[in-house]
């Protein structure tokens, strides 16, 4: 381990919650929300890789790789959704999609 695990965790936590904060704040732009999700997932991967290094097992790395795969699947679907919604409403402002409420 090059640095204590705690430092990696704090870095990852910082990134994770930055991403979360961004996602909450960027309600007007769907693309940016997806970007923020990527940031969060990256942080998760960082933790896994850190853990893997800490314990010397491959599971963490594998989990990180699976997350990558999942992310690609989700992003492709999410972007298709963006295209679909934009085509319908000419906007990617999520606040505009609030027909159902209550």
């Amino acid at each position: 381990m090059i640095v204590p695990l705690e430092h990696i965790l704090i870095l990852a936590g910082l990134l994770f919650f930055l991403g979360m904060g961004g996602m909450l704040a960027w309600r007007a732009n769907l693309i940016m929300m997806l970007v923020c999700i990527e940031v969060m997932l990256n942080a998760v991967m960082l933790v896994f890789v850190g853990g893997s290094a800490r314990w010397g097992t491959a599971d963490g790395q594998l989990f990180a790789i699976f997350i990558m795969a999942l992310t690609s699947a989700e992003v492709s679907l999410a972007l298709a959704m963006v295209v679909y919604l934009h085509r319908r409403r000419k906007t990617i402002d999520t606040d505009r999609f609030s027909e159902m409420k209550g």
Partner: protein
Amino acid sequence: MNIYLALILLLPLLGGLCNALLGRLLPRRVGVIVACGVIWGAFACAVLAFVGFTGPVRVELGSWLAAFSFQAPIALYLDQLSLGLTLMITFVCGLIHLYSVGYMQDDPAWARYFALLNIFVFAMLTLVLAENLPLLYLGWEGVGFCSYALIGFWYTEEKNATAGRKAFITTRIGDTAFGIAIVWMYQLSGSVSITHLNSMGALIPAAVVTTLGLLLLAGAAGKSAQLPLSVWLPDAMAGPTPVSAQIHAATMVTAGVYLLARMFPLIGSSETVRAAIALTGGITAFYAATCACCQRDLKRILAYSTISQIGYMVLGVGVGALPGATFHLLTHAFFKALLFLGAGCVITALHHQQDIFRMGGLRTKLAAVYWPFLAGALCLAGFPLTGGFFSKDAILGGVAAQGGALYGGLLLLGLFTALLTSFYTFRMVFVVFHGEQEHSLSPGPLPQIMTLTLVPLALLGLCGGLLNLPAYLGYEGVLDGFLGSIPGFGGVEQASHADEIALQIVAATLSLAGLGLAWSRYTGSRRADALAREATGPSGAGFLLNGWYLDNLYWALVINPFNHLARFLWKRWDEAGIDGTLDGLARLTARLGGLPAAWSTGRVATSLFGLASGVAIILVYLVWVTLS
């Protein structure tokens, strides 16, 4: 004996049921014969029972209420008191039934009438013959119901129906007290048998006996129209006149007296109770007599006089003169029934005119009514040597024998009442039958059966004194001897012969004085003046005419508040209060439900915030838990 007793009860019941259920299908003649036949049949049975009577018997006919220690079978108890009353009731009612045949000859609802009349007799006999209090209560309520239904017999007029309702409710107020007394006695002794209870007197604390006595007095006051529950009886005259004669003069209204006499061995041991009973009776007698002096309605005069006479009986019970009270009960039954029936004749003859100021001079035209009526009036007024004279005197003698300030006062009151009685009785007789007939309508024909039934009653009334002649005449009264063996009846304090003779002289004088007063006022030249003055309503007459405004008092104190309270509770409490609170709670819940619903704004960001805040909260909680 069993079969007689059972028949005495069953015959009227069957007759009543027969008319009630099949009345529409039977021809009138058959129905009427059945109705009268069963009563006379009952009378025959009563006579047979009398003949075979050797001593008190208890007869159990079947089970009724039986749960654990509470045992109230259908059991009858025949002793001298109940036997005497049974004889009287079946006889008088039999006559009244016959009378009714004539009275109701044009009424299409005869079946209902006779059914109720028969059932009334059944209930009254049950009351008298009951061995236990619940069964007595059955008869007690049964007569109340029949009275209710018969007062409102001509139901289409609101006045009649209301009068029936008033009678039912007022008497039931008394019944409630009676009911409480019954369950109390059950609680004290574990039994509701009258004989058993009467033998319990010594074991029950005095205070409790007093309370019980007062409760029973309240019950009797309701049924017997004593103050303060007397208001229903004058209104009850709305019913057919034979009904008034049978129920509201001869039988039912005396049930209270019977009850008090029946339970006297138990309650008589309390001085307070006796005083209260005597006071109630005395004041009621006076009160009703004053009211009777100013009435214009023939039947109302008789009604008030009934109240007054029952007051005498209650007074008699109060002073322990039970034979006297019973004596007066019997004679009163005869002459008051007679008076009512006579009044019924007059009213029928005059096409349902009841205002005495529109009568007059009927003496000749209705001679067949006049003479029996006069006989009844003499009895009522206590004219010397009539039955009423002796029986009333027996009571007053009992009062005199008590001594003391209270009873002295009551004696004076009773004597004064006797004067009033004589006055209003002859006022009635003179106004109706004497004088000119300028106002009077011409009387129509009367069925013969109506006038014929008056005769035996008149004879009985006049000769009723023979039942129980005073002791100073040298031999024991028949009735005293007959009743003497009943617990409570014996050992009545007797005034000395001299006192009794003195008292009778005073009474006779008062009676004659009243007669004279009425004579001077309502016959001859002063008649027109007096009538005119009374017709316009002299000052103070309104007070007496309206029964001392007792009705108005009840309206103001009870009925109006009751109405308002009922409405208030319904609208303000039930609907606005309870339901309003619940509806408000429901609305509040719905309003609160709007909060979580409003949280769901429909924007994605809100739901993401929800998730994120979940994370934040849970982490903060974790820190708080693990690091503290």
